[in-house]
């Protein structure tokens, strides 16, 4: 069956295909926890999937750079250490991922390639088929529209679904996506004009509902040219709780720390775990000297990385996709998230 790049599938039939796939491959999808929180988990039945969510509180980067991950394990044979890489990850399907997270993934793709390719990241990445859900109903914290993070994407997905009511509009972004449809017998029909038109309308409506809150340009200029008043950084530094939440939930933040966990029998594991540039321990040197001892310097660092031209040029993208998670997660309520800081910088000279 030849499938066109934009196809239309009844929702139930798409999910049946997913169910067939699930028999052979791990499928990770959004599920609702008891209290109402959304989390992505491996599922055993497509009925577990919830569509009643916009974006999950914790970013999908955890499926590519887990919060804690083994770098290698070791044991001793005599006095000789023997180190071993972790086992290869298995193939899986990530279903229901939102555009902003996918854009975050694209950001990480760029970061983890280059002169030093991060094999641990790429193994997971290559084993994962992404089926994303374009957004039609933004949250009031969403500002992807300001950061080219959504609400839908042109590329970067294997498959992108748009909910048209009874059917999904399926956009095929890669050969792997096409293979998924074929292998699991998802009955696709070419999208008709009216389908495309409906989608166009939905997109338009979504765009209109979206209140752009992060006018990045001025902030980028101020930061790039180091024109932000020191007093404003002082103020923001004093407000920050240094909880690290903003970086932990950010789909673009990748920093990690490394530590060893030895066991009594001489075996052990070296892990990496998420770290945060908002922590004082992040830059403290062995001598006790700390170049970013003050929260102010750390807040400044975070925004330099997110919004300076130097980084945008290097990464091809600002370090923000507009998912809005840093708004919800911040203890310094509505003061230090990206839209808030962008606004503060815009009003500052």
């Amino acid at each position: 069956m030849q499938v066109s790049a934009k196809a239309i599938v009844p929702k139930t039939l798409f999910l049946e295909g997913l169910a067939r796939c699930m028999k052979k491959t791990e499928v990770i999808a959004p599920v609702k926890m008891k209290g109402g929180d959304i989390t992505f988990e491996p599922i055993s039945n497509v009925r577990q999937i919830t569509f009643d969510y916009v974006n999950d509180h914790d970013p999908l980067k955890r499926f590519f750079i887990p919060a804690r991950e083994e770098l290698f394990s070791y044991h001793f044979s005599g006095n000789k250490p023997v180190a071993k890489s972790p086992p290869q990850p298995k193939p899986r399907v990530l279903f229901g991922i939102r555009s902003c997270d996918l854009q975050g993934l694209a950001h990480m793709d760029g970061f983890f390639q280059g002169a030093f390719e991060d094999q641990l990241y790429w193994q997971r990445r290559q084993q994962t088929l992404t089926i994303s859900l374009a957004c039609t109903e933004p949250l009031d914290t969403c500002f992807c529209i300001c950061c080219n993070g959504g609400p839908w994407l042109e590329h970067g997905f294997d498959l992108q679904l748009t909910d048209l009511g009874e059917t999904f509009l399926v956009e095929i972004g890669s050969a792997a996506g096409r293979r998924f449809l074929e292998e699991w017998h998802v009955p696709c029909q070419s999208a008709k004009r009216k389908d495309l038109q409906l989608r166009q309308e939905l997109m338009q409506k979504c765009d209109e509902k979206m209140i752009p809150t992060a006018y990045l340009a001025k902030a980028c200029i101020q930061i790039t040219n180091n024109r932000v008043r020191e007093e404003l950084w002082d103020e923001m530094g004093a407000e920050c709780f240094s909880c690290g939440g903003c970086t932990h939930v950010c789909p673009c933040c990748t920093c990690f720390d490394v530590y060893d966990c030895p066991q009594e029998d001489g075996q052990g594991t070296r892990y990496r775990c998420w770290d945060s540039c908002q922590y004082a321990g992040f830059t403290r040197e062995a001598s006790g000297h700390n170049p970013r001892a003050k929260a102010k310097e750390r807040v400044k660092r975070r925004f330099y990385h997110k919004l300076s031209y130097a980084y945008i040029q290097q990464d091809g993208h600002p370090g923000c996709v507009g998912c809005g998670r840093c708004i919800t997660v911040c203890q310094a309520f509505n003061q230090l998230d990206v839209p808030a800081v962008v606004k503060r910088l815009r009003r500052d000279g």
Partner: protein
Amino acid sequence: MKIQTTCPFCGCGCGMLLEVEANQVISASPQRSHPLSRGTLCIKGWNGHQIIHHPQRLTQPLIRNRQKLVPASWRQAITLVHDRLAKLRDDHGADCIGVIGSVKTTTEEAYLLNRLARSVLGTPHVDSLVRYDHAPSVRVLQAQMGYATACAGILDIEKASVILIAGANPKAQAARVGSYIFQAAKRGIPVIHIDPRQQEHTPLYTLFMQPRPGTDLALFNALLHVIIARGWQDPGVLGISHLRDDGLQRFTPEYAEQVCGVPAHQIVQAAELMAKSGPGVIIYGTGVTQQVNGTANVQALWNLALLTGNMGREGAGLIPLLSANNMQGAIDAGLMTELAPGHRLIKETPTRHDVAEYWGSLPEKKGLTVQEMLNQAGKRIKGLYVVGENLAWAAPDTQASTKALKNLDFLVVQDLFLTETAALADVVLPACSYAEKEGTFTNLEGRIQRVRQAIRPVGACLSDGEIIARLAKAFGATFPSDPKQIFLEMQSCIPCYQQIKYAQLDQPGGVVWPAPGAQKGNGRCRALLGERRGGFYPVTAGAPFTEPPDDEYPFALFTGRPVFHRRTGTMVSRSFTLDKEDPIVTVEINTDDAKALKLRSGWPVKVVTRRGHLRCTLVATRAIAPGTLFLPIHHKEGLSQSLMLAALESESGIPEMKLCAAKLETA
């Protein structure tokens, strides 16, 4: 997989999700649906989980064999504990045994430990480290309301029109509370901050009053004086006519200025803000309780709340910033020697009746407090059973308490790690972390929340509750083992828990006792007080410092908690990420004092008190007043506690841990 549970690192009780992979907890993330934390965590919440798989976790029981602790089976360990305690009891009577419970274990476990101590071992000497932080709060609030608990919810802070913080650092000690105060300040709500040390958020507040350490009582009384003298009190307060005769006249703002060094006009301003802004929340911490005047201070704050009409309305009330995740639960379960379960005094007969129904019997009188047990170690107290507390470091005057523990005939310690206390024990029992068991924690506003098992126990660890139950069994008693069963039994003994249905605990944020409907944060005060208002009892005669600064030791040394730490750091210093946050011990000094002594920031110095000395790095700052020094507590590299006094306040038995005289030397 993610498991929803309650953060165990401070009294806020934020909702968190633990991510589990191959029976290991690999991350914690915030619960968005939680009514209080609403999708946030502080640095401890995010990273504290690393303790669960720390390589130093105890994984099997240890028994002292000659000088060394050697691994043993659970049977051996439990039998040994039973045999030794039974023998001590036969030889010297039950009250030669002391039991010290934890403010971190679940309420169910606190309850079972209490039952074990009082009904199975039969000793009256059961206490917990509530003593060291909030004994004065328990004393005052229990006397006033019949409940030793906050009479406002954390969410009342959102509704308050004025906020007063005294002797507390909410941002560091209870970040979520700090966050709500921050939000209020940003909205323009007046915030009054009373503390000898300025904090990061202080500049955001309306008014900062910096009393000399230990002089808070005069300041609080001056606030009362101004309000009464100017007729600003809430018209509903009874007995106003005789208020003038209560000895408060002396506490004019000018007098208080002399005593505390706080400008008189600031005192008047604060009094006016408190009296005239509308509903107000008063939040206080160990800065005002760990003093010789601890009980008087809390009473004075109670008076202030009463006088300003802040008892029994929304957005108002008094909140003691309880310093551990389940300190409230420990109080609820009666893990203090003067209390029975349910906030009732042990000496009251009806209490003994309904508890005895389940327990069989319980002692008629209160026994010794933690500090008294330490003082009697080797004398009246021969055997000590310590659950989940690093007593050697938590107690003031570390050298003296370590020596006391060594004087015991028999010491059992139940913990996650080989703490300084466990290292002295005859038997060490390895306990499960919060991720390996079920139960409930009660946060600082009385919110009962589920703790859920995320992974199988590490090594051969057992939950504290299971260990206690096994020990009870060795003594021939049968304890309920299922957490729900324990909770139901507990409800019968704790009247204020009785309205709660177990299933309600499952909802996000659990249930605030006593009224399940009160969890929205309004009405806790009303639910607690009913028609009562509590009494206005001015305490005007403050005790003098036990150890005032003098020529030899010219500085007033006081202590506080850095954000990364919780209690003695047993847990938090074993989180890789938190441990690197704060590796260096510093002592703060006022910039002018530093100049006068020709000392600079970054220099190594020695803080010397009559009990010992501590090497640390100097930080010159304007955050504290001249004549004072500030040290972080329980720092693993430098125990401030080793320098502090063990002098006891007579009313509540809290040691005066916040303040003593010191001098600085170059190291």
